[in-house]
């Protein structure tokens, strides 16, 4: 663990990313404490520019709602949807990839054709269709993001399992009569963990972007104040009130950037032999 941290630390970008993410998580967690009132509450006159009132440093939106409070609650929504949808897509992708890689043959063929079917449909278009069919809500958005995000996981896990499948210790386990399920879960999967973690950190970032794009198009959960919704609602007034789209856009940018930097840091830390020379 100490090794891991010292290697991670060497990548300065990753540390900065981690710092940003910690701030975002803290803001999300503390939102109800910092802003006890609902982010939907109309607190002041509409279109109040930033820095005109101390209580409302980022101004108000078209209905006089506090933009800063919206950002804090939006962080909750983005992180929640990013994390949960990634977990769901891992839960779909890992078993499919592991089965395909371990058994090979027609199982592999069948599962991979199925995976390719999802890969050939453009991600975002499929997500829009799914959300539109099932009516926008947190569940349908998480489901849609998970369904469009799992194929890369399956392919990655399959590749890893294929290469581990022929190692001596796996063959020894087979010879000793262990059950297939035990071999996959105990022997193989733990060794595929590092690339999965790296991929997952990047998937969280993609999921946040997907959710924002859906909300921007008006396909977000109408009961949740999310960053994408804030930008979507500000789109029509962008010429009168730049701050309404700027701040949530900046928040999305920083969070996604932070997650990407962390992903890179994790990659360096978990795969020391692959890390770039001269560092």
């Amino acid at each position, binding site marked *: 663990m100490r090794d891991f941290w010292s290697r991670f630390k060497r990548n300065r970008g990753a540390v900065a990313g981690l710092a940003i993410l910690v701030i975002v998580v803290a803001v999300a967690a503390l939102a109800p404490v910092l802003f006890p009132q609902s982010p939907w509450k109309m607190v002041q006159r509409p279109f109040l520019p930033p820095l005109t009132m101390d209580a409302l440093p980022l101004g108000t939106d078209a*209905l006089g709602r506090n933009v800063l409070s919206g950002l804090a609650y939006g962080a909750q929504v983005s992180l929640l949807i990013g994390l949960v949808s990634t977990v769901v897509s891992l839960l779909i992708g890992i078993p499919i990839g592991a089965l395909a890689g371990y058994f090979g043959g027609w199982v592999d063929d069948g599962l991979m054709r199925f995976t390719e079917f999802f890969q050939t449909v453009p991600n975002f278009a499929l997500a829009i269709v799914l959300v539109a069919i099932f*009516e926008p809500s947190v569940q349908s958005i998480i489901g849609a993001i998970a369904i469009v995000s799992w194929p890369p996981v399956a392919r990655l896990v399959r590749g890893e399992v294929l290469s581990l499948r022929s190692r001596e210790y796996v063959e020894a386990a087979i010879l000793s009569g262990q059950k297939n399920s035990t071999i996959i879960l105990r022997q193989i999967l733990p060794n595929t963990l590092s690339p999965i973690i790296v991929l997952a950190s990047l998937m969280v970032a993609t999921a946040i972007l997907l959710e924002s794009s859906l909300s921007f198009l008006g*396909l977000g959960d109408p009961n949740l104040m999310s960053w994408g919704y804030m930008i979507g609602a500000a789109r029509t007034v962008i010429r009168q009130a730049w701050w309404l789209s700027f701040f949530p856009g900046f928040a999305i940018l920083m969070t996604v950037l932070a997650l990407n930097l962390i992903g890179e840091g994790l990659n360096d830390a978990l795969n020391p032999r692959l890390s770039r020379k001269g560092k």
Partner: protein
Amino acid sequence: MLKRLASMAAILAVAAGTASAEPVSGGRANVVIQPEPPSLMLGLVQNGPTQMVAGNIYESLLRYDENLEPQPQLAKSWDIAEDGLTYTFHLYDNVKWHDGEPFSADDVVFSADIFLRESHARLRNSLKYVESITAPDANTVVFKLKEPFGPFIGIFEGGTMPIVPKHIYEGTDYKTNPANNTPIGTGPFKFVEWVKGSHILLKKNEDYYVDGLPYLDEIYWHIIPDAASRAVAFETGVVDILPGGSVENFDVGRLTELENTCVTDKGWEFIGPLSWLWLNNNEGPTADKRFRQAVMYAMDREFAKDALWNGLGKVATSPVSSSTRFYTDDVTKYDYNPEKAKELLAEMGYDGTPVRLLPLPYGETWQRWAEAIKQNLEEVGIKVDMVATDVAGWNQKISEWDYDMAFTYLYQYGDPALGVGRTYISSNIAKGSPWNNVEGYKNPKIDELFAAGATAVGKDARQKIYTEAQQILTEDVPVAWLLELGFPTIYRCNVKDLVTTAIGINDGFRDAYIEK
């Protein structure tokens, strides 16, 4: 100082403009039409954009000023018999169809009695009261009624009773007649071409029966699908007239500050669009009258008007719009009063059951409005779940009564018997339409009053009946009235006399002219 000089110059220019208010001929009006109409055959299709374009091609017997008083159109004068049963119209005698054929009273009889009875559901309802329509001579039409029908003089508007050419449609299948693509009317403008997705072009009718009219040479309707692009088209001078509803409300303020730009919310008095929340009277918390009253007190409608509608329109105080006949303000008033709402909820013992709120999927303004109302309601303790939906889903959910609260707005057509009663009478309770008594309100007294109001003779008698109906309805709150919507028409100030009637630019280009 320079600025002051400039504004002085502007004032002088305006003064000069009004001094030389002699209409000038010529010029082209560039107008936005949104959305693109499905057809221009006004006798078959009467939705908003069709009326707006085709209202300048087709005409009816009358037009209406902003107080809804009838004005001559194809009929130069008219008499109503004392008993309210016989309406005689004297037509202009020099009217020609756009293809050169002469127009006569036979066309009116054909249109009202045969063509529109088949194709126009709203008019058909009013024609139930008509016993016969006859043409004693080429320039006279007589409508005889079975019983008096108060709003009868109000049904001769272009979109309600468009007169279509008998010589083209008699004996044909109206819906498939090829002439539907090249509409022939008697109006001040003739159809020239319609390039789908691009524009509709109308040109001046040189043989128009009123001397000197119209002044404009052409009307060019631009079809621009995106709201922001429509606003830009006005800014860059591509279009000169933005009819109500063609740009987002948030843009109205910015556009009206442009140079040489005027705005008016007149021209909607005839249809009187009134918005409200359907409240499901059949089930859930909204079935309780006290809950519905609490909703009325909880909503800050002044705020919605100022923040979302740029201050245009009026807070609705009654089921009848204040521009419609027989409006009264002698009713229970619901000002913004969250405390009172909380008291009412406590009195009924509201247990926090969530209610589903359906926004109107017509763009940003309506979405923001739903968010504001949701917040208003949550502040008095009503739990609200907003349901996201598209136009088809909205229609279906409302038609099937699958909602607790839902935004809508309906037209009133100038008279409670035409546009108000339909929402509250119990004979109109039927699944399958989003425009009838969707809330499921039943009150025999209200049924009786609206039935009596339609056939009562004399303004005073009808006023008395409708006043009572409005008092009962505002007490019962079958639906939560929001605003009398104000749709701003934005235009260059040198376009004059554009909106002169209660129907706005639907028939406004007849008198409009462009000052050089």
